[in-house]
Structure formats: C-alpha cells, structure tokens
C-alpha cells in the first residue's frame, strides 16, 4: 500500500492550456519514468485532485478525508502560470488553502522571466519555478520535491533553523534537505499555515505583505 521510493510510482499532474506544451511536458516526464496526467486548466486540475470548496487549512489531517474524492495519489503538480480563467498562481493558492491538497508540491512554469512573478509564486508555496520551454534538466530537479512531501507532516518547521537531515522513513519527523531554497520556503510555509485566507480573494494583481514573520493579516 505504501509507495516505495520507486521512480515509476511517482505521479505528476501537469496543467497547461497549450496542447503543444502539454505534449512536451508529458513526454519529458514519461522519459524520466513518471506517471503523468495532463489537464488543460486549473479548474480541471482541482477537479482531478478532488478539491472541495470547504477544504481549508484548519485540520491537521494529512490523510485523505472522506469528503475528498481523490482516488489517485498525485505526488507533484506542475502548472503553467499564464492560463485563461484560473492562472497557475490561482491554482497554487487554492491548493495551499486546502487541507487535503496543500502538501502536494507545486512547481510553476512560465515563458516569461518576471522576478516579481517568481517571488510571488515561491512566496505562496511553490517549490520551484521553471522557465519554458522545459528541459530534461528541469525534470531532474523534480524528484527531491516529490520525495520531500512523502514524509512531510502538517506541523512543518515554523522556525528557519535547520534540523538534522534524516534518511529514515519515520512519519513524525520532518524531512529536510540541504537545499538552500528550502530554508526560505520553510519560513514561508510556516506562515502560510497560520494564515486564515478567504477564498474570495479573487485575483489580486499585487499582493502587499508585511515581513515574513508572524501572522499575515489579510484585510477583505
């Protein structure tokens, strides 16, 4: 029942409105022995993941709740940023707000190199950001993100201090890598967990936030 760390058992959900890019991403991922599902929109992605409006970051459950009809385990979501309707950023946000989905690592792709966009996505909890078109070398970076989540709990580190790296499969411990990017991510994830966000946030073009420590107060 438990997934062993076998390459072929990792399932990636790829989201992109471009047919060509979906085909490309699918091939890239399959070449690296991942199972792949592709969808052409954020809403279809949420549907596939079994997302429900009521799933907020309230519970500490990591297991799939009865409300959640997710049948397939998804180990990583890779999504295009620019999509009509729901952008990749919106999708990311919705996933992070959902108690059942927020532990699934999300990677964003974009054809445009916009630093503020990249920051925004990482800030919201994306594991990584790739410039399109994607290459095989990018796909090779995905595995660590997927491995991380397999052992991650809800009560992730809230302090930026590094803990001992653990190789074992213990459930209660938090798995960390020495990835430099991770320490920034930890701080941000810690804050994300404390935040109460309203779903009707809409599509804020610019998010102004205070510093990344303590509660982030969102005004409606």
């Amino acid at each position, binding site marked *: 029942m438990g997934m062993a760390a076998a390459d072929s058992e990792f399932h990636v959900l790829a989201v992109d409105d*471009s047919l060509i890019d979906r085909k490309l991403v699918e091939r890239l991922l399959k070449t690296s022995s991942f199972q792949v599902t592709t969808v052409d929109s954020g809403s279809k992605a949420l549907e596939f993941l079994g997302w429900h409006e009521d799933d907020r970051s309230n519970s500490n459950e990591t297991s799939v709740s009865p409300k959640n009809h997710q049948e397939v385990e998804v180990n990583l979501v890779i999504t295009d940023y*620019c999509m009509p309707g729901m952008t990749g950023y919106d999708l990311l946000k919705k996933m992070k707000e959902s108690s059942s989905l927020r532990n699934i690592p999300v990677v964003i792709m974009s054809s445009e190199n916009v630093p503020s966009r990249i920051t925004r996505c990482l800030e919201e909890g994306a594991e990584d950001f790739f410039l*399109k078109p994607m290459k095989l070398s990018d796909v090779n970076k995905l595995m660590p993100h997927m491995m991380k989540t397999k052992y991650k709990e809800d009560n992730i580190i809230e302090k930026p201090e590094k803990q001992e790296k653990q190789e074992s499969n213990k459930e209660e411990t938090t798995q960390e890598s020495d990835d430099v990017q991770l320490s920034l991510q930890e701080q941000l994830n810690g804050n994300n967990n404390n935040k109460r966000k309203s779903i009707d946030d809409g599509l804020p073009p610019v998010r102004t936030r205070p510093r990344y420590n303590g509660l982030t107060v969102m005004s409606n």
Partner: protein
Amino acid sequence: MQRQLANMKQSLFDQGYLDEQFIQLEELQDDTNPNFVEEVVTLYYRDSVRLIQNIEHALDKNPLDFAKLDSHMHQFKGSSSSIGARKVKIECTQFREYCRAGNGEGCKRTFQQVKKEYATLKKKLEAYFQFARQAGPVEKACRPK
C-alpha cells in the same frame, strides 16, 4: 542519403530557422516514440493556423485591442518557442513590443513578417520530414549536433 539529411538539418540551424529547443525535442524521440518530433510539429501547425486566424481577426478590428493582440501573440510565441522555431519567435517578440507601444501599424507590418517566417519554416520542415522518411528508418533518425 543520411548525410544529405544531416546536411539539411544542419542548414536549418545554421540559417537560424531552428534553435536548441528542436534538439531537445529530438532527444525525447526514441524507439518507443519514433515520430515524436514530427507529431509535435504537426500539432504546432494546427495550433498556429488557429492562432494566426485569431490575430488576423483581431487586427481587422477598429480600434485595435492591443491587450488581446498581445495575448494571442503570447500564445503563438509560446508554441513557436516550444518547438524551436527561432525566426518565428523573433518576429513574435517584435510584434509584442509594438503591442505594448500601442503601435498598430507596427503590429500589422510585423504580423506579415510573422506569417512569412512561419510559412518558410513550415515548408522547410515538411521537406525535411519527407526526406527523412525517404532516407529510411534508422535506430535514431536524428543525431545530436
């Protein structure tokens, strides 16, 4: 004949029609997916017809909706970039700059260039794939540069 094929391909790169991304596509082609590159390129043609029509339609409007034009072109640039269509991509970038500057004439002029480069590339790639078929199957029909 294989050598002719290789030369054909090399000249596409040398003349700047294709870039490194095309090689990435080739590297994804193997025995389990022997026609991957041609499949992707075929999808690209189909997609491009639609996008070009959209842009043409949008350029007929008065006044021009530059945001919409930019958005259409963003898509076309994206798919062109994904297959390594270098010259097409360059013209797409130029078009988008005119969009951002609100320069309608510039857009229209550049769009002609976009279409021209696209048509040229399509012709060359069709010839290339046809020749590749004639040259006969090889265990890997493409060689890394």
